[in-house]
């Protein structure tokens, strides 16, 4: 005898839910959840892409990636918000200053986000030039120390300047109540389409850069053999700075775009970071393609696992984490990564 609500009942929940998929309303719900997952998946994918860019060029996991993006997101917020106003009545730091010194402030959101991306690139190059480059060839420990130090430091700066309030970053895409495509009864929001379009443009640009330009050639040379590349005259340092700049710019873009669905506060990017790291690990830490696939997988898991597998919403951090550990143990190069060769 199975009592309603008992463990047995919950255990069969999945089977019954799948059975009900043929029911029209549930199909719509399923599609809707997929679309929701695609939005966050795109954000994870772009952050994972940034992590992969740095891992490829330096063999380093940048734990500060999320926080560098966070700072960019707040720069975008400051540039697009009129002085002395905000959703919850507390003015956003820097808007008063910005309205005095920056022409045409407040900027439209697309311009503010472009500026934040430029700011991210600048931040990335400064960090690479003055903090990471002197550590080239040092132990893993000191590199972890510095990226963790950066994480704490940048988070502290953001907290100091902008406070702990949750802010809503205006999406550059129409984000009103009626801004969606109706697709089999589910709502595919313009923001989701916009974020994916942006991501695809970024990937195409990145691919063009890596495959068609001289900088890209240098980038590939460094990835395959750092010392060899330096010997034949590739400007390793400059290429690495460019790699960091691009990665940080993508991070800033990701943080500016979360505003479509999620509010930005000093802790937002910390959770994003672990999803992005999991996405990058699952896809393969040196594969941009893998980062996109990983991001999508994590995003969809996050929106589909709670309703269909009965995992509580707060625990959505666990499946990606478990998947990450599993991949690191069983398949460290991920889905699309290069199988490493150890020379003894």
């Amino acid at each position, binding site marked *: 005898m199975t009592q309603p609500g008992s463990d047995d009942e919950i255990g069969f929940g999945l089977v019954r839910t799948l059975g009900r998929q043929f029911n029209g309303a549930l199909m719509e719900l399923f599609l809707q959840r997929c679309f929701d997952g695609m939005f966050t998946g795109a954000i994870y994918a772009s952050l994972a892409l940034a992590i992969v860019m740095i891992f490829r060029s330096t063999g380093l996991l940048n*734990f500060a990636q999320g926080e560098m993006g966070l700072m960019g997101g707040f720069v975008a917020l400051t540039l697009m918000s009129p002085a002395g106003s905000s959703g919850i009545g507390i003015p956003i730091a820097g808007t008063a200053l910005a309205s005095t010194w920056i022409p045409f402030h407040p900027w439209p959101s697309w311009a503010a986000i472009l500026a934040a991306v430029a700011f991210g690139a600048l931040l990335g190059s400064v960090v690479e030039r003055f903090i990471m480059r002197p550590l080239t060839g040092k132990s893993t420990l*000191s590199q972890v*120390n510095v990226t963790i130090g950066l994480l704490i430091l940048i*988070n502290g700066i953001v907290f100091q300047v902008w406070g702990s309030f949750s802010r809503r970053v205006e999406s550059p895409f129409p984000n009103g109540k009626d801004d969606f495509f109706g697709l089999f009864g589910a709502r595919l929001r313009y923001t989701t389409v916009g974020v994916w379009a942006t991501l695809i443009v970024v990937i195409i640009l990145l691919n063009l850069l890596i495959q068609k330009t001289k900088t890209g050639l240098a980038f590939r040379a460094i990835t395959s053999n750092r010392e060899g590349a330096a010997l034949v005259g590739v400007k390793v340092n400059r290429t690495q700075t460019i790699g960091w700049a691009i990665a940080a710019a993508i991070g800033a873009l990701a943080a500016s775009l979360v505003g479509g669905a999620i509010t930005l506060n000093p802790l937002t990017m910390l959770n994003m970071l672990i999803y992005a790291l*999991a996405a990058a*690990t699952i896809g393969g830490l040196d594969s941009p393609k893998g980062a996109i696939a990983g991001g999508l997988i994590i995003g969809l898991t996050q929106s589909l696992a709670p309703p269909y597998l009965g995992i509580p919403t707060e625990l959505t951090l*666990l499946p990606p984490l478990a998947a990450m550990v599993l991949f*690191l143990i069983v398949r460290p190069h991920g889905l699309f990564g290069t199988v490493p060769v150890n020379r003894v």
Partner: protein
Amino acid sequence: MSTTARNQQVAAVQDRPPSEAKKLTTRSRIGLAVLAIAVIIPPFVTTALELTKLSRLVVLVLAVLGVNLLTGYTGLISLGHGVFVGVGAFAMANLIDQGMSLYLAGILATLFTGAVGLVLGLPALRVRGLYLALVTFGTALAFPPFARRLGTLTGGVNGRTVDNEAFVAPSFLSLDDHVHIWRYGVCLAVVALWFVITRNLINSRMGRALRTVRDNEPAAATFGISVRYAKAGALAISAAMTGTAGVMQAILNPYVSHASFDSFLSLRLYAAAVIGGLGTLAGAIYGVLALILIPTINGAIELLDSDAIVFGAGLIIMTFVAPAGIAGLFEGWGRGKPDPS
């Protein structure tokens, strides 16, 4: 690795002094004397509230020592030790509920945290270096929401109180009006006990094994050290002593909540261990001094809203200026070469 290089490595391992000197050096004696005086002062100059607050920070030295044992002596980067503080604290709260005496509950909670460390860590030990940092960091991020879901065990969203009425001085000491001083003393004694255990451990055969694993895993395996057992042992002991920090925090507070064990606690513990100095016992003490002094000074001069900036900048600057931490700055007088890490 070429044969010559490996021979050099082996020679380096053999040349290392067998321990951090079994006998205390003059330098260590002076250091311990200064420390003894320093810990005696607070009960005379602080209020009860301040002393309890200080006790809570003092026990964190065990967590920093735990990070140090794992990262400094064994070479396994841990960004998730805050989890073990949390496990120890929650275990203590629940064991007291079962009607156990404080001592028994404390010991069991410590052992339990050690076991949890082993269970959580065994898969993590399969990955190394950067990836271990990644996995432990992920665990630190996932712990608070997980603890929030455990309902009555952890008090859920609001946290829960801990019954610490039994945590008072024995009646013959007649310290009834100064219970905070007794508690402070117990904290110091527990910390001292773990320091003696750790010192003996790192001077033992196992301690040498850990350092060999850290410096060169293949060489360690060549010597017949079971790399896996060495790592697992270090992890269990490190988790256990970090759990003790949680146990003490739980009965000092007396309140435990998932929010106290967020990922920034783990990062802070790691930063303190690095700033203090990895691979030396004194490093843990310097690290906790930093944990105590930075927020205190920051609070006194009201410069920054959060001391995170100081910790982050400190971690970066120390990596450049003094990779061996504050302890490394004091090396070179009174003793030989610093223990490289």
